[in-house]
Every structure is written in C-alpha cells, then in structure tokens.
C-alpha cells in the first residue's frame, strides 16, 4: 500500500495553520489563513472544471456503450456544451443566458420541488405501513397538527387556540430543543471527523 508522507504533512501543516488562525488573533497567522483560504477557493474552482470533465466522460461512455437511457446522455451533453459555448462567447449576463436560466433551469427545478411535495405526502402515508411504532405516530400527528395550525382556513382564518398558543409553544419549545440537541450531536461528530482528517487518520487525498 502506497503512502504519501509529503501530501499528509502538507495537509496537516496547512490545516493547523488555518485552525490556529481562526482561534488565535495573531495578525500574521490571520493573514496566512486568509491567503490559504483564497487558494482553496481557486482550487475548488479548478475542481469544478475537473468535475464537469468527469460528467462529460461518464455520459460519453454511456453513449458509446449504448447503455439503457443513453438518449438522455445525448441530450445532457448537447445542452451542456451549447450552454457552455453560449456562455463563453456571449458572457453570463447576455439575454440568451438569462433566457436559459429563467425559462429552462428555474422551471425544471420548480417542477422537481413540486414533485418533492407529492413524494413527501406519499412517503408519510407509506410510513405507517413501513414502521408502525409510537415514534411514527408522534411524527405524523405533529406534522399534521403543524400543517393545520399554520393554515389560514376559509371564513375562520387562523384557529384560535391552536395557532396562537399551542403552535408557538410546540415550535419554540420541544421542536427547537430537539433541533438544538440534534445540531449539538452533529457538531460533535463534525469536530471529531475534522480532527481525524486534520491529523491524517482519514486521508481522502492520496490514500492511507
């Protein structure tokens, strides 16, 4: 198994400089941290180009092997290259580019958002069949209650006690407390995962 001590030592050093630059208010350290973060942003931009290359490669192979659904790959490659060329030649502010965003990309994403709403309703209905326990019951009852309490009903408007007393209590009491608990757990997990990456115990860059 090949090891890369140079890559690991560079990553550890830079990670420590950025971390210390965040916590310690030493001007030089802060300056170096900001410069390194700028480099990281440039590298992320280059990675975006590499990623697009990867996308083209994957779909090109699909077309060449005439895999199932390769017609979609043709559409993807043609539209992607056409958008890329138009953007390079006319600039991102040109009316055609705005047209592509406003008439094609935004409506497609909005349609998927609408599909998501239907999917969630369907998943909630199936939840009782999949996992019929008390947590499922609490989850569904709370979700339904919040929907009803948030809605403004015809003729009645907001439901008196539900909307102005129980809903805020539920939102800012148990729900906010539960969310904070989840976020604390996630933050602790993020801290230990970050430390593993910082000390090269996990090395997604160049193996271990």
């Amino acid at each position: 198994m090949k090891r890369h001590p140079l890559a690991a030592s560079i990553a550890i050093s830079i990670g420590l400089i950025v971390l210390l630059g965040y916590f310690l208010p030493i001007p030089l350290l802060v300056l170096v941290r900001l410069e390194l973060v700028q480099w990281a942003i440039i590298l992320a931009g280059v990675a975006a180009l590499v990623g697009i290359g990867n996308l083209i490669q994957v779909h090109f192979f699909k077309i060449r092997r005439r895999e199932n659904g390769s017609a979609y790959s043709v559409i993807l490659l043609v539209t992607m290259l056409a958008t890329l060329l138009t953007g390079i030649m006319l600039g991102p502010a040109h009316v055609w580019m705005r047209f592509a965003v406003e008439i094609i990309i935004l409506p497609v994403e909005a349609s998927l958002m609408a599909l998501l709403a239907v999917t969630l309703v369907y998943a909630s209905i199936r939840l009782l069949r999949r996992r019929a326990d008390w947590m499922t019951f609490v989850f569904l009852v709370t979700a339904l209650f919040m929907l009803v309490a948030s809605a403004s009903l015809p003729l009645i408007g907001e439901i008196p006690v539900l909307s102005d007393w129980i809903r805020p209590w539920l939102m800012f009491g148990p729900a906010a407390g539960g969310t904070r608990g989840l976020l604390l757990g996630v933050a602790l997990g993020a801290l230990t995962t970050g430390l593993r990456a910082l000390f090269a115990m996990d090395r997604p860059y160049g193996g271990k």
Partner: protein
Amino acid sequence: MSQSLGLGLVILATILLLALIFIKRKSQPVFREIAAFTRLRRAAGLAVEDGTRLHVSLGRGGLLSPRGAASFSGLALLRQLGEQTSISDRPPVATSGDAALAVLSQDTLRAAYQSAGAEELFQPANGRLAGMTPFSYAAGAMIITRQEQISTDVLIGDFGPEAALLAEAAEREHALLIAAASDPAAQAVLFASTSEPLVGEELFAAPAYIGNDAAHLASLQVQDILRWLIILALLAGAGLKLVGLP
C-alpha cells in the same frame, strides 16, 4: 470568550482522541446496536455474492463549508464499503453534488481498491459528479439507482429535502436504503422515507460501525465523552439559573 471555549474544546477533543487511539486496551469498545448499520454490513456482503451494485450518494456538502464534515464522514464510509465490495463484478459507484467532493470520491475509491489488492479493477468513472445544484444532483443520482442494478442505496452526507426524491427512487427499485444527513430538514424527510432512520450524530458513527479502524472507534468514544460533558454543563447552567446565580 466563545473563541477560547471553542479552542479549549478542540484541544480537549484532540487529547482524548490521541489518548484513546494510542492507549492499548484489553478489549474493543462496545457500542449499542444500530439496525441500519447491521443491515448495511449484510448488504455489502450480499452485493458481492449476487453481483449487484452499491450506490453511495455523498451529498453536496462543499469541502470549504462547515457542512464538509458530513462529506468527510461519507468518504470514510465509502472507503470501507469500497474495500469490502471492490472485488464484486459490479463495483460500488459514488455520486456527489460538489466537484471537489467528486474528485475526492475517486481518490478514496482508488485507495480502497489498492488496499483490497485490486487496483487494476479501479475505474475513475465510478466516482461521479451527478449535478451541481440540489435538484440536478438528485435527478442525476436517481438515474443511477434506476439504471445500474443497484441493490443498496447509501445516502450519507449533506442533503436538503431533495433527499426524499433519492429515497423514492430507491423504494421504486426495491433497493435497501440506508440514509443519514446532517441537515435537520433532511433528517425529518428521511425519517418519513426510510425503514431504519439514522438521526443526528449517527451519521458520523457510520465508519466506526462498518469498519474496525482504531481512529474511528476512538472518535466515536470522544463524541460520547464530550456529549456527557455538554449535558453536565447544561444541567449545571440550568441549576445555577434556578438558584438565581448569573
């Protein structure tokens, strides 16, 4: 004050992590059973036997954002699943919604193949960028579940509510779905969409449960110790407030 507290927490976590890794113990730490991870271990073995494929969706957590930690956890799990299933006829495929994450997923898969002694089987195209926006990523990853004989879909990383679309695609293909996300909105969506939901910090426990690496086991123990310290601090704060101290 908050920066000093943060630095103190980082130093304490580092000391605990290094101590728990390097102290020689008679027995391995025992953690509670999590059904989703037991099923995932079994599914990884079955995928090799029946020639089906694992799909690991790493989400769209950019490595320059605070959400990158969830992506690192996903990469650690990908590494372990890659090692276990690399000799399969249909090797695992990883999709990402961030370009840098896609590059790292290729590197992680390559390392997994090297570790399993099967480097010649590695194909860079198995680490893919599926899309650059939340919904384009979901659309790109859903197609893989549908078209590439996926038996197990693993969603691990930073997702938004669009995770429901990926869960729906797995359900339609009768694939086993194991899903964990860092965002509370995605956690709620996945709670409704999966048979065995993973909530909160269980996302970061995945590498310790699937593999047997000392660093991952120690990291999980550090999380437990720090969680207890925070609980005690919260209780002490509440107690002090109750008796009227500032």
